């Protein structure tokens, strides 16, 4: 069984490595990127068969997937780059969402675009406040402490009337629309008759009206945020800061002795992750219009970590693909009803047992693993030669 699993893992590795090499490395052609991005923006309009979720509103699913992708990019900084297993990430997601809820609806009525940076700032502060005492513990202990903090945030919200208590916050306004009520222009969606595209005039997206019925503008907003996050995150990762994170992850003591102020950089990773988690939470709150403590359960944290680990810890593209898998697959296969979570669980187990490093691990991890495999094969052949 173990042998089979290893061989299957190798096979998968050989198949995925070229794909990952294209996705994970720099020289992808610029026009290809632009085309890809445009295609993603157009997804809710195109309504492509097979991809489109048959049993739930597709733009809505796309929005959720994108928010999860933002979360995965943020968590990948903490867990993937700096190696800090954070099982309480939902706490930051909640902090972002609640800041928006309170400032736009519950106690104030400020516009969303003004509140968004405030929400991210407050979440960043939360990250620093939680990180400063907890980041002194390492490994499994850190995971437990962060899990506690995630719960702590949820329970505090539940028991604080000023934060809405168990009832939550209702009627969170949508972001400011442009050209309301009919938008600057309208984009009709496509409908498919087999393989023939038809223009569906009954469904068109008003640009740019954040309404209740059409989630497409929210998806565009979230996707724009995701792209901005990836852009900035890449700049930071490919600098001294990224190296310090990796060095801390690889060997904290050695890093400290080589002059890395490990605590400072761990805190920075934690705060950056919180910042991005706050953004995701803020977008979620603006779209949902209603949040309560039940929206932020501990198992959501686990799902976030699962996204990063499945996709490939330490590789932002891997983490995003993990988020897509985690958020999209259960919606796509809604027709399986109660079985879908069962299948989802099986899929996770299969991925983790055949590909423990994730579908698209970071380039260096891939390289190291391949070398280890080669030397293992050499050792093996030597042994058989002796016999």
């Amino acid at each position, binding site marked *: 069984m173990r042998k089979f699993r290893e061989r299957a893992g190798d096979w998968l590795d050989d198949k995925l490595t070229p794909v990952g090499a294209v996705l994970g490395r720099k020289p992808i052609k610029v026009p290809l990127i632009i085309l890809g991005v445009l295609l993603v923006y157009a997804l809710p309009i195109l309504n492509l068969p097979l991809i489109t979720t048959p049993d739930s509103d597709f733009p809505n699913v796309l929005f959720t997937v994108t928010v999860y992708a933002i979360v995965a990019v943020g968590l990948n900084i903490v867990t993937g780059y700096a190696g800090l297993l954070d099982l309480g990430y939902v706490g930051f997601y909640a902090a972002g969402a609640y800041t928006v809820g309170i400032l736009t609806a519950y106690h104030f009525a400020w516009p969303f675009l003004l509140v968004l940076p405030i929400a991210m700032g407050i979440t960043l502060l939360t990250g620093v406040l939680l990180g400063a005492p907890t980041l002194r513990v390492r490994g499994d202990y850190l995971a437990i402490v962060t899990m506690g903090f995630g719960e702590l945030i949820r329970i505090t919200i539940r028991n604080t009337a000023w934060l809405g208590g168990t009832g939550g916050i209702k009627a969170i306004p949508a972001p400011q629309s442009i050209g309301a009520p009919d938008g600057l222009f309208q984009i009709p969606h496509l409908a498919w008759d087999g393989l023939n595209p038809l223009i569906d005039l009954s469904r068109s997206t008003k640009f740019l009206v954040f309404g209740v019925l059409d989630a497409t503008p929210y998806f565009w907003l979230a996707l724009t945020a995701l792209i901005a996050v990836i852009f*900035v995150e890449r*700049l*930071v990762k*490919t*600098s*001294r*800061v990224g*190296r*310090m994170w*990796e*060095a801390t992850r*690889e*060997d904290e*003591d*050695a*890093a*400290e*002795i*080589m*002059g*890395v*102020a*490990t605590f400072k950089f761990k805190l*920075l990773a934690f705060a*950056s992750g919180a910042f991005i988690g706050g953004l995701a939470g803020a977008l979620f709150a603006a779209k949902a219009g209603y949040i309560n403590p039940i929206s932020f359960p501990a198992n959501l944290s686990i799902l976030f970590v699962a996204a990063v680990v499945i996709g490939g810890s330490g590789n932002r593209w891997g983490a995003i693909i993990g988020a897509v898998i985690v958020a999209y697959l259960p919606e796509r296969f809604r027709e399986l009803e109660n079985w879908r979570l069962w299948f989802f669980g099986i899929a996770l187990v299969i991925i983790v047992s055949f590909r423990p490093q994730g579908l698209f691990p*970071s380039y*260096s*991890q891939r*390289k*190291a693993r391949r*070398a*280890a495999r080669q030397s293992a094969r050499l050792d093996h052949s030597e042994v058989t030669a002796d016999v």
Partner: protein
Amino acid sequence: MSDTDVATDTAVKPVLEVDHVTIKFGGVVALDDVTFDIRPGEILGLIGPNGAGKTTAFNVITGVYQATSGTVAFEGVPLRGKKRHQITKLGIARTFQNIRLFPSMSALDNVLVGADVHSKVGVLNAIFRTPYFRRTERAGRDLARELLKFVGVAARGEEVSVNLSYGDQRRVEIARALATKPKLLCLDEPAAGFNPAEKQRLMQLIRDIRDAGNTVLLVEHDMKLVMGVCDRVVVLEFGKKVAEGTPTEIQSNPVVIAAYLGTDDEDDDDDAA
């Protein structure tokens, strides 16, 4: 044994002063009132049988342990209370007995981490790709490549460090330590696991490092290497300093011979370790 007949000029201010340092772990006295100094531009060997306190002395110098009593001063600045990364910034760099590179980072990135010690690039500099960012990044890369060339691993710089051979990993570790631009380079048993040819090359490398203007502290088991490369040698036994002098003096010192170099048996013990 007096210090006066030592090769290096004693009038020069020492780089590092270890002054009456005692370290106790519970009831165990690991270092007992040890005093020695390291002078600029020399290679100082720290030797002694197993358990003599070499590694403890090494760790107190690099800030891993704090002295129970006594002081360690680097260029006149006491190291007590300094964090380990601050000590590196002051100018003490080290390698590890059991190699501790960052395994899944490339050799070049490993050395770059060392070079980053003196960089102040933070998130904002990185996001805006400021001129300061570009300047330090380029300088760091140039330094890292140069150092990899210096230690002889230039061709494999892009390789992930776990994939490098054992000897190359040791060399990358030395390059990483040198990248912090240390005033004192501490090597913890750099020849462990080396064959005689590799040891020969290592001796040359250590000499080259010294000739490039560095001061070197060498903790090593291999007598031939220590005697061949060091300017001065400090001998520890049971946590105490028993002798200090040039390699020739040490080799003819009766105390040292009795304690350490003495019989073949002792030597065998040593090799077994």
